[in-house]
Every structure is written in structure tokens, then in C-alpha cells.
């Protein structure tokens, strides 16, 4: 389902239902960017038909200029072939910490790949995107990205949350009291199996450094809906979830 987040930021993608009726979202975010759309992650191959239909509806005749990958796991790259087949001129922006020849499909052309370097800004279709390391991640080559124009932080797997049936597409402000801690905890306990070996205070201190350095208005996780209304509440509940897991 296409959902407008804020400004020119849109969220699309589907979710898969699992045990107990809990849904795991697999999102793609799109910045329309005045004629040179930027796509963040490519979605799952399982949802190919819906994703491509939604992208065509959202973009119309405008080809995306760039596809940014947070990392290269299948839920984030499984639909890449459909996107690059539909729009072969799109460039692929990946973390400088990956080895494309091993971590991307073999048919991706070298000349199509651009690298994002943590600690740098670069301009894509007139839009500045900055890169930082993935601070909480399950794959080494994961990076996070930030769009200053909308204040959106793209956090890959971090800040994901499980969604109960009938809440699959809702943003934080569309719930009675934001995203419950329990939903965040369910996702992070499942996705980051190393957390019980960690000191939760240290995890949260590192996350706080990220938010202290930039003005984040929207958190855009791949496996959840955008947190667009009350970022402070979202971070506080994330912190609580981490403390309960660690």
C-alpha cells in the first residue's frame, strides 16, 4: 500500500504474516525529489507484483535516479532485479563496506554501482544524502542514511517492529499511544539475537549519539512503518525494549 509519510517521502511495500498473526513489514521508502526519485531498499521478491505496481503508480512516467541499499540481505534486495529491469538507467548506491561481487546478484553491472562512505554527504539528483555506519545491525556492511530535507533517518533493520493484524499500515500517530514497546521488543529480540550478550545501556548510549548529531523528524525502518509524529517517544520505547532484551 502506498502511504504518504511527510513532505515528498512515501512508504510502500507489503508485510508477511507469521506466528500468532504478527506481521513483519518489508518496506521501501521513496523520495520523489522533484523529478529524480530516490528509492531506499528494493523490497522482497515475495512481494514483487505489489511493489512494482505501487512503484509504477507512485512514480508514473518518471524513472528513479538512484536505488539506495541499506544492506544486501534478500528482504532488502530480493526485488532489485525487477526495479533495475524496469528502470535500467537507475544507479545503485551501496555501502563502501560491502564487496559487491560477493554481496550483490552476479548480474549487477559494475558501472551501475556507486558507493556511500560513512561520514560523508553526497548529492543525488540535487538532493543531499548523508551516510553513517549502521549502529545496530545484523550484517556488517549495513549503513544508515539521512535526508536532511525531510529529517528522515533510514535505519535498515533497527527500529523495526512487529505489527498485529489490522495495524499493518499505520504510522505511530495513527495508534492511540504510538508504537508500543512490546512491538519493538518482539522485533529486536528476534532480529538481533546477540542482544542478550550486550549491555543495554551501552546500546542506547550509541543510539543517542546518532540522534544528538542530527535533527531527526522521521525514523524509517525497513521492517516497520515510519515513525513520523513523535520521534522522542519512539526512541524512548526503543530504549526500553533494548533494556528488556539485554
Amino acid at each position, binding site marked *: 500500500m502506498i502511504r504518504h509519510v511527510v513532505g515528498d517521502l512515501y512508504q510502500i511495500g507489503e508485510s508477511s504474516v507469521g506466528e500468532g498473526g504478527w506481521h513483519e513489514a518489508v518496506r521501501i521508502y521513496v523520495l520523489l525529489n522533484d523529478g529524480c526519485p530516490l528509492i531506499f531498499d528494493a523490497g522482497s521478491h515475495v512481494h514483487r507484483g505489489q511493489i512494482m505496481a505501487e512503484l509504477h503508480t507512485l512514480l508514473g512516467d518518471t524513472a528513479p535516479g538512484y536505488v539506495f541499499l541499506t544492506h544486501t540481505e534478500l528482504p532488502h534486495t530480493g526485488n532489485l532485479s525487477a526495479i533495475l529491469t524496469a528502470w535500467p538507467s537507475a544507479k545503485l548506491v551501496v555501502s563502501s563496506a560491502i564487496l559487491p*561481487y560477493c554481496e550483490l546478484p552476479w548480474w549487477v553491472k559494475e558501472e551501475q554501482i556507486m558507493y556511500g562512505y560513512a561520514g560523508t554527504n553526497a548529492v543525488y539528483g540535487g538532493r543531499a544524502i548523508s551516510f553513517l555506519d549502521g549502529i545496530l545491525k545484523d550484517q*556488517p556492511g549495513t549503513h544508515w542514511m539521512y535526508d536532511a530535507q525531510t529529517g528522515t533517518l533510514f535505519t535498515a533493520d533497527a527500529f523495526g517492529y512487529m505489527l498485529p493484524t489490522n495495524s499493518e499500515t499505520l504510522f505511530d500517530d495513527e495508534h492511540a499511544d504510538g508504537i508500543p514497546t512490546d512491538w519493538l521488543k518482539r522485533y529486536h529480540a528476534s532480529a538481533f539475537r546477540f542482544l542478550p550478550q550486550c549491555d543495554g545501556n551501552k546500546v542506547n548510549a550509541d543510539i543517542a549519539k546518532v540522534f544528538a548529531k542530527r535533527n531527526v523528524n522521521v525514523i524509517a525502518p525497513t521492517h516497520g512503518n515510519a515513525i513520523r509524529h513523535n520521534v522522542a517517544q519512539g526512541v524512548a520505547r526503543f530504549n526500553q525494549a533494548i533494556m528488556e532484551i539485554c
Partner: protein
Amino acid sequence: MELKIYGDTVSRVGVRQITPQIYWISHCLGECAVEVNGGFAADFAKLNPILDPEASDIIYNSFLFMDEKTLLVDTLSPGQHDTVLEALSDILGDRKLDYCWISHTELPHAGNIAAIQRAHPGLEIMTVANHDHYEVHGLADATLLNYGDVIDLGEHKIEIIKPLFVDHALTQWFYEHNTGFLCPVDWALNVHRADQCFRFMDEMEEVGYSVEQFMHEVSTTSRVVFPWIRWADPDATGEAVDKFFEQYDVKIFAPSHTNVIRKDLDKYTAALSQAMRMAIVGNFDLVF
């Protein structure tokens, strides 16, 4: 050394025998490593000046057990989709591939599942249980294994064990009881020079490698492979490593990104314990 090589550069795969029934199928770049990977591996030496700046190559391992049943451990990455099939075909001959065990679902480990399934109809894919939403990871029809489950291949009994160090949630390790073969997946990643390709660790020592170098490499690469360890306790982690090797009598240490260690295990396991302590207290060089 007995070695058969298939393909070259990004598709290059080498095959060696670890035991009469266990084959080591691996990929590394060789002479073109710096050109292809842009010095990726050599960047580790920037984090730790003790490391060899000429060591620019990383190994990607897969293992094939040829018993009453045959089992492939991981699939290598999409860049090797043709050569890994060719190597498998040569080793298997007329035999079929019964099982493919996926350590975790990153592309360098699981990227050729579909190609191998097409080439080996009836192949049973196995992966870790206690997760959910397998379809988005391409494992919708996989057999799910719990810690303690044993895959009986005949002479080889492969026990699924809980990993000490994980990155992806769908990660498990295994230990084979009769040979003492341990596959700890992404743990203990080392780097190597072009003259060290496809060598067992004891053969690397013949061309200048050392256990001390291994310790420093693992202490550095672990900060990249498992960045979460900066939030862990160094002593508790070191003790967990020591306890692990007390529990399992490891005779063949066969990770996914390390030259296989088949001799002098004790000195290397002691180095691993120290390396993890060093890793946790080291500089992670992160951009927040």
C-alpha cells in the same frame, strides 16, 4: 598441495580434501584481489598496523560431506554460481546431493540456493528453526533444525549447536562428532596474501603466517564482522570461548572465512580467546 581450480577472478573456486570424505570448496580472488575488491581486506591493516598490508584477500568457504548421505555446507556467493556447480558435479560424480545446510542467509553463504536446487532436484535445504517469515529470506520450504538436532549422514553425525557469535538472526553453527569438525560460520575471519590462497593454516605457516598474526587479525576483523561485541563484556566473552572449546573437542576448525585449521588446534583456540578480549576493548572506528 593437491588442488583443483575452477574459473578465475570473481568466479574462481578451489577444491581440496580435508579428510577422505570432507571436501573444502572455497573462493578467493588471488592476484587480482586488490583490483577487484579495492583493497577492502587491506583496510583491516589501517585499523591495526600490526596486520600485513599485503594481505588483501578474503576466503569464502563451502564444505561437502561425502558419506552415505551427502551434505553441502553453504553455497558460496552469486559470483561463483557456475563454478560451484561444476566443482560439485566433479566431486559428486553419479551421486546426488541430499542436503544443503545454510549457516545463515547472507548472499555469500546462501546466494546459490536456487541454482543448486535446479541442478539437484529433490535437494533438502536445512536452516535454523525458531524464527519466522522464512519466505522473505528465500527459505520457505526449508527443513528447520533446532540446537541439539543431529543430521545423520552415516559415519558423520552433525550436531546443530548454538553459536557463540552471530550477526544474522538465522545463524547456527555445527559440530561433527566423529571428526571433530567445527563450522563456526563467520567467526575468526582472517585475510591472506596471493601466495597463501587455498592453504590450510599449517601450510600458511610455511609461507610466513603465524598464530600471533591470526590473533591480531581476528581481534580486528571481529570488530567489523560482529560490531555488537563493543557492547559485550570482554572477560565474560573470553570465558565463553574457553568454555566452548572445553565442551567441544575440535580437531578441524572450519569457519566460512578462514583458512581451515587442521593441526595444532590448541594454540589457535587459545589465540581466539585472547583475540575476542582484544576485539571488545579495541577501536571500532564508527561514524555515528
